[in-house]
């Protein structure tokens, strides 16, 4: 009784995926016409490097949002991890060890979110809002409100270096994307992430350990936030106590621009990458075009709105 897959279904599917890409394409087109510097190789790598931090955060948040959650604490985890790393480096610790410690700390912070949300049944918004405040406070306590500088050229290369002309952060972003894509698409954990977001009760009744899945996604998010904190610290040769403030909003915007639904259960990682690029290209373009500062926010908000609206419009 099986009817064959409908060609239109495929088209819709394709459109859904192509929506954000079309938005990005449009922006690139416009910018390359009005700003001759935009499509230089060097600027392309520049934009890619700039988005790497946001993209890493957004990748993690994609997992969280797919389960129907949200993570507002990533900016604070970024700052605390960065501060820890810089502090350890300044104290002369081996860079690899420092990285390991920081990543572990980030993963634990994420896991704490996950436990609060799954075992404590606290709404994700409020749980991560509270930990956002706590982790930021801890960063201030740890740094005493001042940047921590260190001097370690080898470590700095993680953020500043190039590998075959490609900026190292872009390579990290590529690796993270590939690994997470696989995790989401080809493993049972990935499937459970979608299941928990789609219908948590049904997932639980099917034997999915929903609590573990939730703890898992927040841990991933924390780990990636920590990783981006490390890269940022490497790039800046220092860690700022205020680093990453309100980064969560840009990261969430990237996820949603990429077509992932905030209700959970629906979305994809490539979309997030594209969403991140939209935001990066936008920021870059505003700078290249020297848009006056007060107008930048107006333009940025409007472009995001138009992108989302176009996407909706296309799908109908």
């Amino acid at each position, binding site marked *: 009784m099986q009817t064959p*897959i409908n060609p239109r279904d495929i088209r819709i599917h394709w459109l859904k995926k192509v929506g954000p890409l079309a938005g990005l394409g449009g922006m690139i087109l416009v910018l390359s016409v009005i700003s001759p510097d935009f499509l230089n190789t060097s600027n392309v790598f520049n934009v890619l490097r700039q988005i790497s931090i946001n993209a890493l955060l957004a990748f993690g948040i994609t997992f969280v949002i797919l389960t129907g959650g949200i993570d507002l604490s990533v900016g604070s985890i970024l700052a605390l991890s960065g501060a820890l790393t810089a502090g350890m480096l300044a104290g002369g610790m081996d860079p690899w060890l420092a990285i390991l410690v920081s990543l572990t700390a980030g993963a634990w912070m994420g896991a704490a979110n996950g436990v609060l949300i799954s075992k404590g049944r606290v709404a994700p918004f409020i749980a991560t809002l509270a930990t956002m405040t706590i982790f930021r406070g801890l960063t201030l306590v740890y740094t005493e409100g001042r940047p921590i500088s260190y001097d370690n050229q080898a470590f700095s290369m993680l953020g500043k270096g190039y590998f075959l002309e490609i900026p190292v952060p872009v390579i990290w972003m590529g690796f993270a994307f590939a690994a997470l894509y696989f995790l989401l698409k080809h493993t049972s954990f990935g*499937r*459970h992430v979608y299941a928990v977001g*789609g*219908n948590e009760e*049904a997932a*639980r009744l*099917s034997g999915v350990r929903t609590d573990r899945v939730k703890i898992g996604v927040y841990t991933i998010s924390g780990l990636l936030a920590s990783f981006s904190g490390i890269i940022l610290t490497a790039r800046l040769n220092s860690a700022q106590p205020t680093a990453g403030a309100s980064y969560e909003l840009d990261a969430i915007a990237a996820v949603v621009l990429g077509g992932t639904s905030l209700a959970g*259960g629906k979305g994809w990682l490539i979309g997030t990458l594209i969403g991140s690029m939209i935001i990066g290209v936008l920021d870059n373009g505003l700078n290249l075009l020297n848009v006056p500062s007060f107008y930048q926010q107006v333009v940025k908000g409007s472009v995001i709105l138009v992108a989302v609206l176009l996407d909706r419009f296309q799908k109908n």
Partner: protein
Amino acid sequence: MEPYLEMKGVQKSFAGVKVLKGVDFSLLSGEVHALVGQNGAGKSTLMKVLGGIYPKDGGRIRVRGKERAIVSPRVAASLGIGIIHQELNLVPQLTVAENLFLGREHIIDGWPVIRWRRMREEASSLLERIGVNINPARRVEELSVGQQQLVEIAKVLSMKAEILVLDEPTAALTHRETKTLFETIRSLKSQGTGIVYISHRMEEIFRISDRITVLRDGEIVSTRKTVETDMDELVRMMVGRKIKECFPQKRPRLFGEERIRVENLSRRGMVEGIHFSIRAGEILGLFGLMGAGRTETADLLFGVRRKDSGRIWIDHEPVRIRQPRDAIQAGLTYVTENRKGNGLLLSMTVKENLSLPHLTSLSFTGVIHRHREEALARNLVRRLSIRTNGTKQQVGFLSGGNQQKVVIGKWLARRPKVCILDEPTRGVDISAKKEIYQLMNRLTGEGMAILLISSDLPELLSMSDRVLVLHEGRPADFFSKEEATRENVMTAATGGGRKVANSH
């Protein structure tokens, strides 16, 4: 007599698939017009077009002689069209009274201020009219599915619709409420209301309808006067071939070892002191009136809710079940009564739904083996004749009955020891029902024990080897196959039976 409602050549497609291929349908004043057909035939879709939920792609709709464009549920309501949809459409957080008058609250003239007392009083009398006694101040989420269905019925009655559509209204009701509903339908009929009645329960169709229209694959097969047709002909028209006897031949009653034993299962305020055991190959029927605690019993068994007390043995081994995962590992499976609420992942594909409980065995070091998953899904789709555009079809777009098959199907890939089926044939068409019955027999034949919860009394009586009846959360009586007659079971369910403490 001019028909109240006339639909001509109505067409509707979803994503390019024609679901309604030019359907003609009419409804006279004071008639009950039954609409029947297999799962996915397009019955609900036709009614949703009428209700202004889906825009039609072609055709005309005339209401009381005038052609109308029904663009929204509001327009439908203003034309006197009232619909009870197949899926419950209540706001769980609001009270019964608030739900009954949602969108049409009684307000003080000229002010948007609600007249609470008037609403509560009217709600009470509405509920009384259909013979239910639910406190209108209770919140809907606290009601059982059956009670919610009654609230929906009361709601649509209160709209004083001239055209009333009931899309499987009895699926969640027991005999008693069904009887009251039919009385209500008869009285509405005598007042001139036209009623479209959709059901998969053939005896109901013959009891209540004046005309029957059969829909198959989005086309009208035939419209007959009820008195001029019979069950066999109807089934043949629906399915396109002959189907004999609905309940399959019972296999010889040879039961094996005890597979599950339950002692003193309780949860305060819900159920108390449930005892039973089921042997390999045996089907234990669990009966009770609405709210008697059947679903609750199943939930406690499977670890969906925490029990206050109760011990469970599977194959003589004591098991600790604190969450569904434990139950699954102990060899239990559970087909829940609320498929949308907790049975399905509506936004995911047929394949993903079917494979969800089996991902561990389908994957190696966490990585899913795609081909094996696809093979599993295809196999189940074929075995259960699930009507779908493919294993990658989104489950939310399947018809109600086909969704139900997916819910059952997802458990069948593994070989469970005990299977709890809560209303497994709710909303399922006659051929699919038969498949499900055969499946149950095959599973018991393989040594599985089944706990069958069903409000469909004929189904329960003919499929069960023994019947346990609950009354207000306690075991009321226990019947062997021979004792389990309609009268005995109903008497026990209404509290008139001999009380039993132990039903092993």
